[in-house]
Structure formats: C-alpha cells, structure tokens
C-alpha cells in the first residue's frame, strides 16, 4: 500500500507541473518553439544556430518586438536522434503550446519531427534539415496540390541542390575525370552522395567508388586507403564536423596527395570547428556552401560581426545565417498575423512570405515534387590560411581560388 501512496504522490507532482504550464497569455511574450541538437554529436551546429536565434531575438525585441509583444524562443534539445526529436516536437506542441516550430538541424531528425508537426497541424519552418523528402508532400501521404494541408516550410535548399554552385567550378576550372565519394550513412549523407553521383555523371566524371561510415567513426584510414588505391582526381565528402576533421587529418597522415581537389558538401566542412580540429590538414579544402559573410546581401556582414562580438571566437558559417534569418522570417510572419497567432493564420502568413534576409530572399514556392520550398543559389568556399574564403562564382569571390594544389607543400610543416 505504501507503494500506491508513493505513486499518488508522484501524480500529484505531475499535476502541479501540468497546471504550471498553462495560464498567463495575451500580453506576455509570443512563444515559438525551436528544435535543435544542443547536446551529442551535432551540438556544434545546434549551439551556433541557437546563438543566432538569440542574437536575432534580441535585435527584434529591441526594435519593438511583434506588434508590441516580445518574441521568445523555447528551445528543445533533439540530441541528434529522430525519436528524441519527435518527443521534443510533441512537447513543444502539447506542453509549451507553441503555435509554430522553427529549427530542425539534421535531416533524419527534421524529417521525423516534421511528421509530428504535420499531424498536429503546426507550422514548421525548417532552417537546415536538407534531405529532399522533407518538403515533398508525397512522403506525408499528401499530394503536391495539398499545399493548404501541408504545414512544413523550408528555408535552405534541399541536399540535392547543395553542389549546384560547385558544378560550374568543376566543369570550367578543375575538369576532374574521376571522383571518389565518402559519406556518413545517415539520410543527409546517403542522399547527398546519390545526387552528387548523378551530378558527376552529367559532368562526365567517373565515380570510382563510394564508401560510407557511421556516426562516431574515428578510424577512417581503411576507407581512405581504398580511395587512395582508386587514385581519383577528386574526393567528395559528406560529413558532419568531427568526422570531416578526422578525414582530412588522416588523409594527410597517409600521404594521400594525388587528388587535385578535396571537396566537402557543406555541413561540417564550413564550420570553424572543422578548422580547429583538422589544423593544417584543413588548408585548401574546398566546400559547397549556402552563404558567406562577404556576399553582397544587406546585413550579412553586420550579422557576422555582431555574432563574433557577442560570442567571440570564429564567426558563424551558413548554419548560423540560416538560423538568424529563420528568426527574422518568424518575426515577419508573426507581425503579418496582426494579433491572431493561431496555427492557421500563421500558416497563411507563411504562404505569403516574400522578404529579404541576410541569407538571401525567402519565398516558399512549388517545383517538381516539392512545395513550400525556398529556392537559393549555392556557392563554393575554400579554406585559405585558416580563413574560409568565398572563391566561386568568380564575380562574387573575395579571394582567388587556390588551384592547382600541391598537397605535399600545403601539408608540409
């Protein structure tokens, strides 16, 4: 019987908390949920994005907030796991009662959480999760004509388009004959590898091999030795941050100097943490990117500088810019809701979004199998002397593309 008493006690505690979560509304801040990986393998990205949301929030509130009310973000940690992401999204919707969710870092987590948002008819503004199917209604038992029933919106381009900016660089300057693809075996990695293999075919580049590894791998030498044996003109890697750094470090250790180019598919390869961990081995590595602070976009440089001023260290890469801009899209959407912050009104406002952010213009359109997808250009960056420089397209570049590269010289102490 003592047992039941304890259980009753527990319930009482539970009830207290559940009562706590409702109450006070209308004049208080407008709360919007943000789903990010704040611990675990992807914490590097999640932290940069959270910092950027906070930076944007402070600016927005300093300028008067949303129709006189303050904007507030409620963060939930998805720990980089799809199942946790789903519970976290449910908590945001059911406990915090947010009318809208933003964020979404890894493809797998974002996709799994998107299904929850869709089910609860809660608008979800995705800022990074990039696997194509996130904005394809057919994967949610809907069709492309069901825009009014589809609650997922995405700011960043899908992973199949990440390398589009890279194509002209390859066909005009590097002209590689062969490529070796190494990727993480998650949704982001496998889909990215598949679409790059397609791109390679289109450009007449032979794919000599393709290898995958799972998250948490620390020994990449067997993989790299296989790649070395194949002797490709270029190595294309789709990795998060620590794996990206280890790949380059170990490529240097085994003297894999024959490729003309090492290319990363964004994600880890543009992060300051990549440079910090790979050190010398990060130099001259090229990566696809969605943004760079020197792009001629109003506010891009200011955002970069303000971030460095506030958080110190190296500045943000495209992940931060995505999150910062997503916060501004949220603010814009809510302002246009004019006091009615219900899910349906927010969804309608999202449909009519047409604004400029530091990440570029944001407008949700339909094409192919996708709806509610923002269209964007992508660019190419290169690590030159420890700094991430925009090298392609030529007319926007802030540094000369270092090519050809003598890896023996670059990697020498």
């Amino acid at each position, binding site marked *: 019987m003592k047992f039941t008493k304890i259980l009753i006690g*527990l*319930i009482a505690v*539970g009830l207290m908390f559940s009562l706590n979560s409702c109450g006070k509304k209308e004049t208080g801040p407008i709360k919007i949920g943000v789903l990010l990986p704040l611990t675990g393998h992807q914490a590097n990205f999640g932290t940069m994005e959270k910092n950027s949301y906070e930076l944007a929030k402070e600016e927005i509130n300093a300028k008067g907030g949303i129709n006189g009310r303050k904007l507030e973000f409620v963060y939930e940690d998805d720990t980089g*796991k799809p*199942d946790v992401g789903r519970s976290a999204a449910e*908590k945001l919707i059911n406990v915090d009662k947010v009318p809208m969710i933003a964020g979404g870092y890894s493809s*797998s987590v974002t996709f799994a959480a998107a299904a929850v948002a869709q089910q609860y008819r809660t608008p979800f503004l995705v800022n990074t999760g990039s696997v194509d199917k996130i904005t394809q209604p057919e994967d949610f038992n809907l069709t492309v004509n069901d825009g009014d029933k589809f609650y997922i919106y995405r700011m960043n381009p899908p992973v199949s388009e990440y390398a589009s900016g890279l194509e002209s660089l390859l066909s005009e300057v590097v002209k590689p004959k062969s490529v070796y693809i190494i990727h993480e075996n998650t*949704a982001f990695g496998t889909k990215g590898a598949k679409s790059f293999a397609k791109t390679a075919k289109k450009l007449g580049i032979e794919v000599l091999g393709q290898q995958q590894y799972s*998250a948490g791998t620390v020994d990449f030498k067997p993989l790299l030795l296989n790649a070395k044996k194949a002797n490709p003109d270029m190595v294309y890697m789709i990795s998060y941050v620590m794996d990206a750094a280890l790949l380059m470090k170990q490529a240097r250790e085994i003297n894999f100097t024959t490729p003309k180019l090492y290319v990363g598919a964004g994600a880890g390869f543009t992060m300051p943490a990549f440079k910090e961990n790979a050190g010398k081995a990060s130099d001259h590595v090229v990566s696809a990117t969605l943004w760079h602070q020197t792009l001629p976009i109003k506010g891009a440089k200011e955002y970069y500088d303000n971030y460095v001023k506030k958080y110190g260290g190296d500045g943000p890469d495209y992940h931060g810019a995505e999150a910062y801009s997503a916060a501004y899209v949220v603010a814009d959407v809510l302002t246009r809701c004019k006091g009615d912050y219900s899910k349906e009104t927010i969804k309608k406002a999202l449909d009519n979004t047409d604004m400029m952010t530091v990440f570029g213009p944001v407008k949700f359109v339909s094409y192919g199998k996708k709806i509610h997808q923002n269209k964007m250009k992508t660019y190419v960056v290169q690590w030159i002397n420890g700094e991430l420089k925009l090298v392609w397209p030529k007319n926007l570049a802030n540094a000369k593309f270092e090519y050809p590269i003598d890896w023996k010289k670059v990697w020498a102490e």
Partner: protein
Amino acid sequence: MEDKNKKSPFVTKVELGIIAFAIILPFIFDSSPYFQGLLIFVLMWVILGTSWNLLAGYTGLVSFGHAAYFGIGAYAAALPYYHFHISPWWGLLTGGIVAVILGYLLGIVVFRLRGPYFALGTLASAEILRLIFGEEEWLTNGHNGILYMTTWVSKYPYYFIALILALGAIFSVKFVMRTKAGYYFLSIREDEDAAQALGINTKKYKNISTVISTFWAGMAGAFYMIYMGFIDPEVVFALHNISIITILVGIIGGVGTIWGPAVGAVVMVLVQELFRSSIFGLAPSWVSGMHAFVFGLLVIFVILYMAGGILGDWDLIKKKLKFSRKVETSK
C-alpha cells in the same frame, strides 16, 4: 511477501489495485498528452524489461542484445508498409512471431555459449542486425528510416494497447513461473549442469523461455513502430538506447521479480525525462545533459547496495527505513 507464496491467487489484490490505477491514470493527465506519452513509454519499457527479465532474471541467460528482437519486431510492422502499403497494425500480430523465429535461429548459435560468452554473442547478433538493416537499402530504406503517419493523434488508444501488452507480458511471465517450466528455468539459472544431470531437457526449456521473452520484445518493437511512426536501424537496434537500457530497467527494478521491471521502467523514464527537460525547465539547461550520468550513478548504487533491485530488496529497504525511523513492527 504474499507474491512468493505458492498458494496465493494468480492475481493478488495489490495487483488488481495497480491495474485499476493504471486504467485511471491516463484520465488524470487528460489535459496533457505529453505526460500521457511518457506513460506510454513507461509501459513500453515494462514490456521490454519484463521480456528481458524472464530470460536473464529467471533463466539466467543474460541477453545483451534485446534490441535484436525489439528491432526485428519494429521492422516486421514497418517493412510490409514500406513495400506494399500494408498497415503496420498487422505488426501487432506478426511482430512477436517474427521475433520468436529470429530468437530461435539466433538461439541455435548463442545457446552454445554460456555466461559472458552468451552475453557477447547476443550483443553481437543485435549489432550485426543493426549493420545489415543499415546497409541493405533496397530492403529497409537504410538509414533514411521508415516513416508512417500515425493513425491517431489522441494518446488514449495507444496507452490502452500498451497497457494490454504490458499486462500480457507480466502475467504471462507470472503464469509460466508458477508452472513446472518455471522451476526448470530457475534450476537452469542456478546450475545448468546440475539441472541437466537431474534429467531436465535444458535446451528445450531455454528455448521455451526464449520464445516467450522474444515474443514480447518483438511486440514492444511493433508497438513502437505503430506509436512513434518512425524507425531507423540506429533507433531500434541501438546498443545503448535499447539493449543496455533494457538491462538497466531490469536491474534497477529487481532481477527475477515479476513486477521489478515495471518499477525499473517507471524510474528510468522518470529520470530520463526529468533531466532531458532540465527538471521541466526549472533547472539550468546544462542539467539536460546529465540524465545518462545520474542514471549511471543510480545503477552503481543499486548494484553496490541492493543487488536485488528495488523490488528484489524491498523487504530490506523496508526494514532499513523502519529501523532508522524506530517504528515498531506490528507483526
């Protein structure tokens, strides 16, 4: 304790109370689907923990790879849906059966091993399955996972399905432990060679124990697919998040007790969620990273000071509490 008395009724009054309480519980949290969701997770861990407990706690076959059966049950529900659009609900029929078949097949290999080698063998089989299901994309969609838009938004139906499964698991174990087979399980646990020498067909009874155990693990997996609507190999074949947690649920609650895993499941979900949500947002956010740490401490404490688990050492705990409070026993 009454539970241990052979002549006690199959369902005791305390158990009836717990069942009645479990039926009322979701209605108490009517306004909070979030808490109802946590309760469903508790029930899912009750099923898994109870399943593991029969094999490890009663039969002495300490499985470190329960994720294999859980995962195969989940995929038994998911794959027909993915390939042929057959509702995953059929998984509640097939999940357990497929897991039993797998358990039997793996048993051919791992039952040749004993003690730590058995543990390692089961651990390896789950890892092998995880890798196969991750690599064979044509069959399983690999690491992209399988998504299913769940049938209901309301938690009630899921709660009661989970409750039925959990009670089914608990009482099937209770039932079998009151039969002859149950005593054979115990004799295998205590000394397999001696049991064999006494004429017990140990292989047969190890298989019986495995059939019941893997069936419930597979059902838990199928339920997970139906309820969560998303699985991938890293989630359902996870070494840490499924196999190890299953063991910890058993150990904390009490190895070789009927209701032990249920208690362990409550503690585990409570600790995990308290910390994951930074004690419901009352504590600073760094607390959210601590749940594994605190759970680890709890396990160390249980193993060092009450090796029987919370229920297994319940008498001991009661005695200590009474002694320290200097309350006289009324017996």
